[in-house]
């Protein structure tokens, strides 16, 4: 059983949902990323998504775009990313998911890239532009390395396709909560609730459902969980907080924000 599967199993037994936090590797600096990870662990995050910057992040809104741009300017690359993951792994056993775009993996070679990041301590991969229709080689390489593959679905994904995508997914399935890019802060509409309920029904408990894009505060997190999600995924809100916080306070500020979100996931 993978670290991610274990985590969800453990949470289920405690009657909790998962808090999944996204931060960008190397933003605002590598040191700050480590402080944020410490804060997230302390605040009770269950899974951490580490973004690896890509020059053309077409599924991301302004906050993650900007974070990625700054990380790239400071020289974030695969080697530095691996170094960061290894440092994190010395401190914590928390499941780590790498989120980036297809070209980064393709350029290094799917098999080579996946085996290297797996060895460093990454448990799962999210690629917003990797469609299941194009995923044969990627899936093969992931399977060989026992890497979880977390695909995305959207409110307009048909039930048949949700089933297909779930069949290629492991760890959890990522539901994009809104029509839009990451980081939107709009009021959720009825279609989001419908999408969560529909996905849960379609999945029939076969794989946990994480919901992200535009979840930025405890009230929204509560709404998402009430609608039936197994995990809330929060990204841009953490990055915004990191940007406006001085480096020495990142750990504590991120920690208390994570705690405020985690609280919502404890149903008892």
């Amino acid at each position, binding site marked *: 059983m993978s670290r991610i599967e274990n985590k969800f199993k453990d949470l289920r037994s405690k009657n909790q949902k998962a808090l999944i936090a996204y931060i960008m590797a190397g933003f605002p600096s590598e040191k700050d990323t480590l402080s944020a990870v410490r804060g997230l662990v302390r605040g009770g995050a269950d899974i951490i998504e580490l973004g690896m910057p890509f020059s*053309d992040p077409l*599924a991301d809104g302004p906050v993650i775009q900007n974070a990625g741009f700054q990380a790239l300017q400071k020289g974030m690359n695969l080697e530095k990313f691996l170094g960061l993951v290894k440092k994190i792994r010395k401190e914590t056993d928390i499941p780590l998911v790498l989120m980036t775009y297809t*070209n980064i993996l393709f350029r290094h070679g799917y098999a080579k890239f996946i085996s290297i990041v797996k060895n460093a301590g990454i448990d799962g991969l999210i690629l917003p532009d990797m469609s299941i229709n194009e995923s044969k080689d990627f899936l093969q390489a992931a399977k060989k390395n026992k890497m979880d593959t977390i695909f995305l679905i959207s409110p307009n994904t048909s039930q048949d396709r949700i089933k297909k995508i779930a069949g290629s997914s492991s760890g959890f399935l990522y539901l994009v909560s809104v*029509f839009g890019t990451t980081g939107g802060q709009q009021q959720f509409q009825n279609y989001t609730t419908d999408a969560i309920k529909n996905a849960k029904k379609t999945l029939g408990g076969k794989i946990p459902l994480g919901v992200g894009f535009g979840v930025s505060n405890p009230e929204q997190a509560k709404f998402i969980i009430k609608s039936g999600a197994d995990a809330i995924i929060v990204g841009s809100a953490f990055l915004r907080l990191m940007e406006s916080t001085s480096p020495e306070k990142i750990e504590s500020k991120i920690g208390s924000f994570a705690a405020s979100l985690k609280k919502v996931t404890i149903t008892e």
Partner: protein
Amino acid sequence: MKLRYPKNGRFGEFGGRYIPETIVPAVEELEQAYLKYKDNAEFKKELHYYLTQYAGRPTPLYLAKNLTKFAGGAKIYLKREDLLHGGAHKINNTLGQALLAKRMKKKRIIAETGAGQHGVATAMACAALGLDGEVYMGYKDTQRQKLNVFRMNLLGSKVHPVKEGTQTLKDAINEAIRDWITNVKSTYYLLGSAVGPHPYPVMVRDFQSVIGDEILVQMKKLEKKSPDSVVACVGGGSNAIGTFYPLIDEDTKMFGVEAGGEGIKSGHHSATLVGGSKGVLHGMMTYLLQDKEGQISETHSVSAGLDYPGVGPEHSYLKDAKRVKYDAVNDKEAVEAFLLLSKQEGIIPALESAHAIAYAVKMARNMPKSESIVVTLSGRGDKDVEEVGRYLSKNVKNRK
């Protein structure tokens, strides 16, 4: 070698559909609509009507006598896409897609543009067909192609300057895709080049193939044979694939000319097929300009329309299949060809097309007078007059 409607949109290993899940239903809906209408008699009739009565097809195939004499070799014919309404080949595609959008009951049209030619052609098609156009354009491009920004506004479309990334065409595409993800139900994305996820590369090629179809008919009349060689400039590659595709099974040598910028060795160029490597961007697998980490490179060209780090997947396929030879012409040669064609023939070419002219003149010198080259003059150069002025004054200063 002709791939009419390749399975899964794959030209060999290139192409495909690498896209966020939110737009999968929209792309599938588009494919269904395209398959339904592409051979539909009524659709073809309406497109033909707009192409002939509105856009001005067929375009002449003009024997450039003075340029031929100047080069001193093979005859140089110009396929005059610059004479189309709007001044570029782009309208062939925008009319086709706008008519399709109407049938799909999508009223809001978004587009990206580099030099502004596709944006203008989109704005025209939207105005003519009663659709609402919004165009994403890199901020850098809005500055160097101000005239086209003004034209789009006049034509009733809204221009969104894109300040992200390198502020050029690739960033305009990113932003258009983000818009599409956000407004997927109401919006039709009218992509301007033979790039992007399937079915765009096939569909744009088909709408642009009118160029090559006409060349074939015209050459058979003028020279009693298909052309010995054809030359077209390649950014994303829509005028080039429209020129090449109908001639693939003919006995014609084909040359695609990319933007060599300040020279391939300088690293400041946009010659994707000459200097690139395989990768995934904007929904397709194709050749890209990228670093060893997979980050997309900043490109350079004096012509905004060629300033793109990717290329249509069918070109990648034709390169590897060795059916088309791809080469590069640098900024200096392109500007010289811009001046040359203006003086020799009284035709001011777009800087994009000037790359093809420069290459054809070099080729013609080494070919016998009995042979002929067709150059697709993809657009006219009024939009580039200021940019050429800037280039010349900068380079004269540098020489001092």
